């Protein structure tokens, strides 16, 4: 008896039992089910939710691997000094030492994210007797990529539990949530443990442990540095390739861009949201550059350095690119109408850069911008749909008038 028959027999035995949803999650992972159509259309398209979610994870894998190398690289660079003139394939970056340091930091974060998050999902699926939905596949991968490398595991566990329960399950699980679960988890971390998360120590592996010792290293992000008016040591290419400190997955604009192409090519993410977000960010960036050029703000101002950052540079530093490509495009929490997506995306880009400049306590605006627009996306959709409803009513009126006039 082959594996297929064995698994099938276990499923038959489990019918009506509580453990079936947990078992099905595993079974459907190995085999797509033998279910056939029974109402409506007799044939179905090839894609299911598992395939869609998997195809979001695929472009995240190179970013994750890069993140591991970068974690080690930043650690070593903080101790030994930042190497000059790096190319993308520089041996200073891609070496086993960097990978080792990054891997032992990052793998536990991934494990905690998946074990805690999936555990809660399976628990809720079991008590609600529904299938385990695939949403956390992606969330669980996004979470380790958007947090600082030095996040303690227990903090992450608490945050994941909060994010999954309060951010998703209380609304009814995958497909019903209002806020992006991964960003809810990140926001929880940042607002529940501000003394740990803010400041300049969490972004580089080991910076916290060395704090106060003679070997102390700095570990702040570019945005943190700019908010404090420090000079940058990184070249534009360093920023584009991603050899900079920051949340694990957010640094390499190059790989994020490749990921964006993949998501757009596979038609999984909305190009409308990505494009309009970038436009929104550029518009806000240009406004700030204009303010500086017009001389309305002087060099002494605390906003000067961030406002003076060229508009295009905003696109490659901080979490903007990652947020726009992988988080803003979450279909559940984004606007659901095509017109709404344009507005939603534009405002995310616009507000991201605004928060960046005006809020030095949290010099990363994209998280807050996306969460804010998540809250407003139903409102945007409401007005877009009202347009459709009004058009229908207008058609009715025209019809009535015509009948009146011409019988």
């Amino acid at each position, binding site marked *: 008896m082959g594996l*297929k028959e064995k*698994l*099938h027999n276990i499923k038959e035995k489990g019918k009506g039992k509580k453990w079936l949803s947990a078992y099905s999650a595993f079974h*459907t*992972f*190995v*085999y*797509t*089910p*033998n*279910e*056939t*159509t*029974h*109402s*409506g*259309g*007799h*044939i*179905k*398209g*090839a*894609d*299911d*939710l*598992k*395939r*869609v979610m*998997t*195809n979001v994870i695929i472009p995240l894998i190179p970013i994750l691997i890069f993140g591991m190398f970068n974690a080690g690289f930043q650690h070593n660079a903080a101790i030994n000094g930042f190497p000059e003139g790096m190319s993308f394939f520089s041996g200073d970056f891609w070496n086993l030492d960097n990978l080792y340091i990054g891997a032992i930091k990052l793998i536990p974060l991934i494990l905690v994210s998946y074990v805690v998050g999936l555990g809660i999902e399976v628990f809720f699926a079991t008590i609600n007797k529904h*299938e385990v*939905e*695939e*949403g956390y596949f992606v969330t669980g991968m996004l979470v380790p990529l958007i947090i600082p490398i030095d996040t303690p595991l227990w903090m992450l566990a608490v945050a994941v539990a909060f994010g999954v329960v309060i951010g998703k399950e209380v609304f*009814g*699980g*995958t*497909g*019903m949530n209002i806020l992006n679960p991964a960003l809810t988890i990140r926001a929880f971390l940042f607002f529940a443990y501000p003394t740990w998360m803010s400041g300049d120590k969490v972004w580089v592996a080991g910076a916290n442990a060395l704090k106060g010792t003679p070997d102390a290293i700095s570990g702040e992000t570019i945005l943190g540095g700019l908010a404090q008016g420090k000079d940058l040591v990184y070249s534009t290419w360093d920023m584009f390739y991603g050899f900079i400190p920051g949340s694990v997955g957010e640094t390499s604009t190059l790989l994020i861009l490749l990921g964006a192409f993949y998501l757009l*090519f*596979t*038609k*999984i993410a*909305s190009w409308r949201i990505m494009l309009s977000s970038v436009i929104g960010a550029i518009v806000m960036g240009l406004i700030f550059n204009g303010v500086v050029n017009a001389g309305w703000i002087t060099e002494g101002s605390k906003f000067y350095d961030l406002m003076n950052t060229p508009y295009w540079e905003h696109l490659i530093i901080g979490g903007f690119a990652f947020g726009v490509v992988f988080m803003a495009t979450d*279909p*559940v929490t*984004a606007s*659901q*109408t*095509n017109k709404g*997506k344009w507005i939603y995306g534009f405002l995310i880009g616009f507000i991201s850069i605004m928060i960046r400049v005006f809020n030095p306590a949290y010099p990363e605006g994209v998280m807050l911008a996306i969460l804010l627009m998540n809250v407003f996306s139903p409102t945007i*959709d409401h007005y877009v*749909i009202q347009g*459709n*409803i009004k*058009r*229908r009513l207008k*058609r*009715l009126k025209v*019809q009535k008038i015509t009948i009146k006039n011409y019988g």
Partner: protein
Amino acid sequence: MSKDIQIKKGLDIKLKGEAEKVTENAVSSNVYTLKPADFHSIIPKLSVKVGAKLKAGESVFYNKANEDMKFPSPVSGEVIDIIRGDKRKLLAIKIQADKEQQFFDFGVKDAKAMKADEIKSHLLASGCWSFIKQRPYDVIANTEKEPKSIFISAYASAPLAADYDYVLAGKENELQAAVTALSKLTAGKVHVSIGKNSNSPFAKLNDITLHKVSGPHPSGNVGTQIAQIDPINKGEVVWTVTPQDLVIIGELLLTGKFNAERIIALAGSSVETPKYYKTKIGAAINSIVGGKLKKEENRIISGNVLTGIAQDLKGVLGYYDNIVTVIPEGNDYEFFGWIKPIFNKISTSRALTFSWLFPNKKFDLNTNTNGEHRAFVVTGIYEEVFPLDIYPIQLLKSCMYKDLDEMEQLGMYEVAPEDFALTEFVCVSKQPHQEIIRKGLDLMLKEIG
């Protein structure tokens, strides 16, 4: 005024097993069956008992809500069985056909000379009213309400659909009589849509407004055409009739006989040699497909693969159907089917699915759902295949939470379940869109009427 209709949004599902344009006579069925379930929302009252002898066209049952609305026997013969289900619900009436067919004489009529009321009562008495459907609600037309216009789609874009140009060839006279009669029942127009490059017999007819349609499925759906030509507003009614039912109406007017004969396509990848067959409404499926299928586990569908009803060999050709499609069942597991690259199934994404590489390839799809039922997650894919000026997901959701006001505002009066067949096909959450819409329409019909 004729208007050409060009549809951009949609999806042509190209399947193997298209019917070859050759017509044979199907084995004549011994027993013909009428199923009240084909007439949605009608509560049937029997007009015959077991043992009764009927001529073709005589009433078998009538509509409880409107006793004038009769449902005819497709053949002459003897009622041999009446099958009831729970609460004595009438499920089927079986009629054993006579060797020599006899037709009830409804009298030869000249449609041109008839008044609207005469036509109406003629159609009701002969059972031909059952061919007229209305929107909103996609049910048999209410006799009380005058339609603002009548729509006939003579262009079939559904997968493997019977080619109307082929099955209607030579039926000009019948079609002309029928459209002339129908044109008197509306103050508006009779809109007929044909394919852009077709040689449809409709092209030369009078009393119609002709439209040429192009673009992918659902360009042939009458709902798509209504939305383009004369959309339905609140309080309005339009009628729809399929071309092959027009032929029956036409023949009734010209000869006085109710002749339930029609040419149907037998298509699908499980059919050995797909072609056209001449048969009658209510014929046993076995008389059509018997001995013509490949030896495997098959799904026999009366209708097309998107909107038809599953049947078995003991089943019946549906009252409105002009195609029987047979495709393989897909009740097998697929190892890591959710991640492996897919070449042999149709997808509108490119998520390791490669049907986009072969735009002209014909696929051999089975009935597997390709995944499990999930909550709605993905957005934007539905609009790509949905040409109506309606937000499909929002309308579906309003049906799910039964908000009548919202359903009305979002355009529920304009849709039929078949309009959601493609959104159902592409749905990654495998939601039953057509069933949701049908239930929503039934709710509205009950609450608003």
